[in-house]
């Protein structure tokens, strides 16, 4: 296992659209172990995406279990992930190992439904909310060549949050897992 060097903005490789993973072999398992070790080597890192270490493959790791007050699924390896439904919007503060010494506000979906393959290539599906949903969206953006810098919103105009919001439009044209 090894801690891999992290690419930092404005490295052009962070702007590439990554390719789906097709082969699940020992080499992939070794890479996942390295990627995870790299994520855990950074202070406070709750996610990492393969392109951050220069590998243009659709693979991310998310693990917010160090913040137990947020609902979470523990350590997740998400391969070829796809967000199939989303609901609600929330602004939150983000930073990124690929953009050191800077944080900013980003609007993300509050709840998502996500399908992905796990590290053995098995199909998985997750319903995520809050911090974990934010982490997954941040990492999946890396697979499409996007950084949180591409989604910054002004701090000054942060809204005074009200208890009741109108139901926002739903993504992907699917009925989300509603009932909330």
């Amino acid at each position, binding site marked *: 296992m090894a801690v891999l060097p992290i690419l930092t903005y404005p490295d052009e490789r962070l702007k590439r659209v990554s390719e789906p993973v097709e082969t699940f072999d020992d080499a992939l398992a070794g890479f996942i172990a390295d990627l995870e070790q790299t994520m855990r080597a950074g202070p406070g*890192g709750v996610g990492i995406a393969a392109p951050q270490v220069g590998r243009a493959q659709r693979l991310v790791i998310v693990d917010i279990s160090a913040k137990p007050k947020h609902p979470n699924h523990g350590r997740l390896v998400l391969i070829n992930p796809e967000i199939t439904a989303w609901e609600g919007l929330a602004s939150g503060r983000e930073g990124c190992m690929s953009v050191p010494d800077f944080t900013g506000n980003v609007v993300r979906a509050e709840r998502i439904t996500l399908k992905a393959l796990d590290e053995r290539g098995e199909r998985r599906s997750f319903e995520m909310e809050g911090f974990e949903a934010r982490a997954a969206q941040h990492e999946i953006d890396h697979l499409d060549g996007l950084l949180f810098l591409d989604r910054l919103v002004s701090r000054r105009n942060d809204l005074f949050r009200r208890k009741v919001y109108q139901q926002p439009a739903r993504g992907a044209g699917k009925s989300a897992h509603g009932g909330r």
Partner: protein
Amino acid sequence: MTHWYMLTLVGEDRAGIVARVTQALYEGGCNLGEASMMRLGGNFTVMMMVSAAGTGDEVRDMLDGVVAELGLRLHIDGIEGRLHQHVMPDVRVTVAGADRAGIVAQVTGALAGAGFNILELESDVAGSERAPLYIMHIEGVAAAGVEAVRAAVEPLAGAGIDVRVSAVETLIG
């Protein structure tokens, strides 16, 4: 050997202030650091870190022409400045209500009493002359935690102001 200066500029707002000022500094061989620039009450205000090889007076000389032409007021101080010293805020306080004297003093007094260090404060007076509204966003570090901040400002809520305290949890991905 370069030094950091904090440059403060104020003048009636008009197009081109930033472009002219920064061009003059660039031509003078300066490098810019962190800055906050904003229109406040019809004035354009600039607070900017400037790194220069020479003295503060030399930086002032670079801006003489622009300052005179655009009617700006300029202030330059040598500072102990460094980049890459960002501190991550962990609490945000939002205040809104009918404008009246004393809101900022009361809120920030309560925050200081709770050990809260303000990193950033932005405020606006909105509404109209007859019914002005005050809106303020504060971010900072709560040495004693978010609940201590909440408890400190809670008594201020009501009487026409809303105060919201929320934890800022930064996601590092």
